[in-house]
């Protein structure tokens, strides 16, 4: 699936073509994004809007504040739960997963 990006803009020049494209996975599906952009932005442009399922009422949650304050966009990234995907930079090979319920912390080895 190709990413939905804003290409032409009357004021801004995003210079998407100058950005480094990296691959990552979302729930096992391979996707592309730009290195360094927030994970949430990369997912949104790939058509993904649901980032987690709430513990009690199993409600869908996604992007909301984009400044790392509201907890709506928590996901599991490379096995670590409760990652604020709106302020966490995308890196090549990241394994991003929908978070269901509370995150479970794994003890460090």
């Amino acid at each position, binding site marked *: 699936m190709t990413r939905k990006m804003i290409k*032409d*803009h*009357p*004021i801004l020049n995003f210079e998407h073509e100058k950005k480094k494209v990296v691959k990552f996975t979302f729930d096992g599906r391979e996707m592309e994004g730009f290195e360094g952009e927030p994970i949430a932005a990369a997912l949104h442009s790939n058509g993904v809007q649901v980032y987690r399922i709430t513990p009690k009422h199993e409600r869908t949650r996604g992007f909301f504040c984009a400044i790392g304050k509201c907890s709506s966009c928590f996901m599991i990234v490379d096995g670590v739960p409760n990652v604020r995907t709106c302020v966490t930079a995308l890196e090549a090979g990241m394994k991003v997963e929908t978070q269901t319920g509370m995150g479970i912390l794994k003890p460090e080895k």
Partner: protein
Amino acid sequence: MMNDNEKLFNSGILTEEKQEAVLPPMDLWEKKKNGLVVIECPQQIPCNPCHDSCPTGAIMAFENIIDIPRIDYEKCTGCGRCVARCPGLACFVVDLTWGEENEALMKLPHEMLPLPRAGDEVACLNRMGEEVHRGKVINVTEPWKDCTRVVHVSVPKDMIMKIRAVKVV
């Protein structure tokens, strides 16, 4: 309860009864080549770039920054610099001397895509965004080279108080 005019004004549409205050004197307007500025800025806000951008001093210095712009129409040359600088896109130039007797040239601010080009036929929109005319683009300038364009479009003279934007169709 609000009447319809109040309701419109309260949502950003200038209504008939408030128009008079912003119009240049007709005798001068009809003669002034390149047109005169019409500013639709009816609310006191802290803003004065229209004055700062005016090369002739036609938009007079503000005693207080919240003043509503005052214009010395004798000095206005219709250059359109304020049109492109005003953060509220509230300045327009209307040239009544342009073209045939029943025609006028309007210089309108434009910051949307697609950009109109000279020769294009564009939809002319009123203050509510309704298409009221199809006009021809005569010229497109970018006075400050900052992506705000000034679109020069030919319109019928009796539409100068209706048309406030153009859209490429």
